[in-house]
């Protein structure tokens, strides 16, 4: 069935190219070298990555086509070639239809995923990839109906795409604390291409002078797996003698919204979502497979302000597990803050930026200073660092992964 869908998509793309052949093909993209060193081992590169990213676009009066292939070439692993997006557009006065693999971004939060839940994350380098690279495309049908300042968007995702986790052995692989080496059972991890495994989302958005608003809802398979454990205990010694881990993706329902509100020189942002039926890992003996289904809240309040030419932004984010039970490995409330300060010098030739995630529960942080210099139009040199602090938590677990990097990027 997936093959049939691929052929169908390819057919649509070819027919789209043929119908739009009288329009000029727009080619843009970038090439980039990204070289990083761990500060704990300045003798070895932690990453040397060369990237080619292409955007090929055809736009007609009522139709459009976009293909976004990319290539990552590494010094120590096989190259990665993929299509981030490949889709067809059809436009009418009020209705837009987009079919194909596409990135769909929702919400007002920055660097945090609350209602932004359609395009799964690529966490192969934790949260360090550029924003456009951290979201995978999903094969979807998207309809947008526009009337004035109002938009209604419906998305149907027939093919489930999970979060891309760091490869085992990667410095970004999260720590999994199993008492003994487990056996992995992936029998439920691959979701069949079926209507029952498809996902549906709806968004209403408003962009007005007074405020911007989004109201969203969705029924979907949560992109991160729940790890269901099966323990084999020796009946004599009562010691654990075997452990099977079965990752599975479960359906959740979500409702939420976000807004941006100008208040004088400030822009106040908010975003929140209620998740019905998320799975959490637990050590409670009453949960033999080590998971518990709970409802969950995720919300953010943020503010943007410009002071003496410095663009400042702060966000306060909380994740709250409802009807919490002892043994759940996540805390009942997890609080994170983000901070951004950014300023340009020499007429946008030099940018200085500091972005930080701060975890308040574990007193850990990821601090990302970055300097960007525009050597020439389209040619940019970046130098920066990723500094992890703390000993535990979302960021503290990578305390030994402090890194300095340089990127040279040419856009065309």
């Amino acid at each position, binding site marked *: 069935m997936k093959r049939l869908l691929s052929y169908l998509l390819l057919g649509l793309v070819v027919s789209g190219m043929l119908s739009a052949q009288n329009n000029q093909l727009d080619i843009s993209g*970038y090439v980039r070298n990204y070289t990083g060193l761990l500060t704990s081992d300045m003798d070895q590169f932690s990453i040397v990555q060369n990237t080619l990213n292409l955007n090929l676009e055809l736009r007609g009066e009522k139709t459009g086509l976009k293909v976004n292939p990319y290539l990552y070439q590494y010094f120590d692993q096989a190259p990665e070639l993929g299509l981030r997006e490949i889709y067809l557009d059809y436009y009418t006065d009020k209705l837009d239809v987009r079919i194909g693999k596409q990135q769909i971004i929702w919400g*007002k939060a920055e660097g945090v995923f609350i209602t932004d839940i359609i395009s799964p994350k690529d966490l192969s380098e934790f949260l360090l990839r550029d924003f456009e690279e951290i979201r995978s495309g999903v094969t979807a049908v998207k309809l947008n109906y526009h009337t004035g300042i109002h*938009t209604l968007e419906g998305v149907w995702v027939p093919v489930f795409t999970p979060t891309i986790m760091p490869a085992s052995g990667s410095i970004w692989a999260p720590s999994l604390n199993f008492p003994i080496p487990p056996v992995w059972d992936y029998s439920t991890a691959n979701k069949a291409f079926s209507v029952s495994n498809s996902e549906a989302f709806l968004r209403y958005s408003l*962009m007005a*002078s007074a405020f911007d608003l989004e109201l969203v809802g969705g029924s979907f398979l949560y992109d991160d797996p729940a790890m269901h454990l099966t323990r084999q205990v020796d009946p004599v010694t009562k010691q654990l003698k075997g452990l099977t881990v079965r990752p599975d993706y479960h359906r959740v329902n979500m409702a939420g919204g976000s807004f*941006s509100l*100008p208040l004088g020189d400030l822009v106040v942002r908010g975003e929140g979502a209620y998740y019905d039926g998320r799975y959490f890992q637990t050590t409670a003996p009453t949960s033999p497979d080590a998971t518990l289904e709970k409802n969950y809240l995720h919300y953010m309040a943020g503010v943007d*302000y410009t002071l003496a030419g410095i663009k400042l932004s702060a966000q306060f984010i909380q994740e709250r597990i409802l009807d919490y039970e002892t043994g759940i490995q996540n805390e009942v409330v997890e609080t994170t803050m983000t901070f951004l300060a950014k300023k340009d010098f020499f007429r*946008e030739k030099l940018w200085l930026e500091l972005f930080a995630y701060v975890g308040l529960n574990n007193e850990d942080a990821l601090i990302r200073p970055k300097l960007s210099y525009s050597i020439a139009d389209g040619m940019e040199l970046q130098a920066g660092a990723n500094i992890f602090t703390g000993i535990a938590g979302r960021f503290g677990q990578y305390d030994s992964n402090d890194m300095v990097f340089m990127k040279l990027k040419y*856009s065309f």
Partner: protein
Amino acid sequence: MKTIKFLGLTVLLSMMSTGVILAQKTGLQVMQTVYNLPSGEDTQAELSMVLTNKQGEKRVRQLKQYISETGGVEKKIMYFVSPADVKGTSFMNWSYSTGKEDDQWIYLPALKRTKRISSGSKGDYFMGSDFTYDDLGDRHPDQDTHKLVREETVAGKACYVVESKPKTSGHMYSKTITWVMKDNFIGLKREFYDPNGKLLKTLLVKNYQKISGIWVILETEMKNVQKNHSTTITLRNVKVNQGVPASKFTERSMTMGS
């Protein structure tokens, strides 16, 4: 004076026909006349900005711009065409004749998200040019005190010379001096003075032309005399009153690009 109109988009040739002629105007009357000039219901144009530094090195930015003014709200959307690293970015501004703060949004294609931004940073330079956002926006004459300091001829054009000082402190310029052509009330030249009273920038109109019965300024140069840096804006394919639909000034339009 509306600098955006000074940049050119649309100014009416003669106030003679509208009966706005006075034997001797005050500074305020001159600036109010300029501010209230009908500018067409909508305009669209391709803009080229050439930034030249003191070494003579040039950087070029190209945009497409659409402006519509109805019901006291001026809506403007700009699509960034080049350089490549900003291509696909769009910027939208709604400004209000009531004096309400502008509403501004930016769409960044890499983020695939339209973001509302604060209009408080009007002193920032637009795309690294010598024009600040404030220079490009509307400044109502009531925000300044105006004095007609003299009348003189510049480049063969008889002009009113008006000195304008902000009524409130904290503005980026301590004063401006504007040369307004008597025959058409187009601003021909303006000097901007920094908070210390020193000349900071000079704006000069270099080319203007009548399009669809409306005078349009096609080339203007802003020079920062302290930094020896200049920006020349040239308009091409200017269309006036061709009908820019309201749907041009929406999130859909920002995300789709030009």
